[in-house]
């Protein structure tokens, strides 16, 4: 079993590659509204990821984040983590802006599709940078409890998140 944080992260990566594939099907089996909808759900999953991250940061839960540098860098690392988290959301906004500004009448021409894919890849790279950092700065002491808290309970959010993870768990 993987903890919720890892499951959400994996699905977020996979979902971005699905969106990229879907872009090639716009006008055939997909619409631009569908793409926007996927991105909105991705943001929703990201919010869940950030919430899960907060409860996994090593120092915050048990003080086990030991840094052996002579200089105290932890506050800087945490500040950096917050900023890179904001960068992820900036990348989402940039992707949405390309969609709003360049797609006309729901018709996706190859040039605009390229621009959207470029933004999606940039988003994916930024998110991977972020999630790699999160991975080394976090720890999960009890995966069962973690999953119960975020994806295995009956709240609307958890039910939605669990369904979304299942839909985005295979490449």
């Amino acid at each position, binding site marked *: 079993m993987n903890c919720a944080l890892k499951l959400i992260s994996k699905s977020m990566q996979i979902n971005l590659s699905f969106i990229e594939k879907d872009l090639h099907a716009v006008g055939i089996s997909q619409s631009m509204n569908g793409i926007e909808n996927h991105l909105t759900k991705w943001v929703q999953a990201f919010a869940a990821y950030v919430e899960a991250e907060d409860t996994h940061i090593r120092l915050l839960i048990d003080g086990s984040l030991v840094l052996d540098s002579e200089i105290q860098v932890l506050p800087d690392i945490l500040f950096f983590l917050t900023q890179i988290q904001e960068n992820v959301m900036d990348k989402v906004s940039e992707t949405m802006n390309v969609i709003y500004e360049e797609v006309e009448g729901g018709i996706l021409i190859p040039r605009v599709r390229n621009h959207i894919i470029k933004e999606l890849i940039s988003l994916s790279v930024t998110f991977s*940078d972020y999630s790699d*950092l999160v991975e*080394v700065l976090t720890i999960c002491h009890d995966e069962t409890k973690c999953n119960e808290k975020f994806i295995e309970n009956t709240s609307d959010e958890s039910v939605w998140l669990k369904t979304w993870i299942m839909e985005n768990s295979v490449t």
Partner: protein
Amino acid sequence: MPGFLDDIYELEHPIDVMYLMHKVYMKHSESVENLSRSTQNGGDFELLTIQLTEWLDHIYYHTDTEDLYMTGPLKDKELHDGRMPLKENVIEHDIIRDSGKIASDSIVNINTISPISYFSIKDVLSMEEKNHEILMTKVNAVEAELEKMLGDSKLDDTFRRHLYNQIVALKVAEYDHFENEEAFVLPMIKDQMTKLQQLECVEKLLFDEKSENSSWIYDFIETNLNQREADLLISLKEEINKNVG
């Protein structure tokens, strides 16, 4: 105007060779993009380096030669939306060169610059720390700590995904440029250049007189076309040989 993947049946004007060249270049960039994507899961990095270098050699020669012999002699003409095609063309060439340099620098510096630099830690920390000396001390400390925590494997992944991102950006810049050039610059060439002037320009685009192997561009283009399109190129070469001294 044919799309980049469409078959080309004739070259009405010598400068229409650009359709063949653009088609081959786009096919090559897509192949490099796919290779780069595959290197994120263990693909052939050496082959990627070779193909990326080949792509950049071609695109740099192509843009430099266009600036000198193709758009250089032309007179710019304002479009209905206020844009100036030749000015835009030069700007697009610079964007391609800059994007190409970013990708090639990544490859060249693979053993000397740590992938941690992709995190732009200095930019982020400078938002809080204004004293340069303290800032650099903090940046070095954070970089060192994160390098240690992430480890070689994750840092290698970081490098590969950022390179992929750079390659996609280059391909998109190239695509936009080719499309604009075909739509706005080629008609100006046909208006302003005689057939002989076009042939002279095409000769420069296809043959690198400064190289020991002057036909390296021509050979690459011809090899990557289907037979009918290659025949069009061969006929054009014969016409160049006949008319350009």
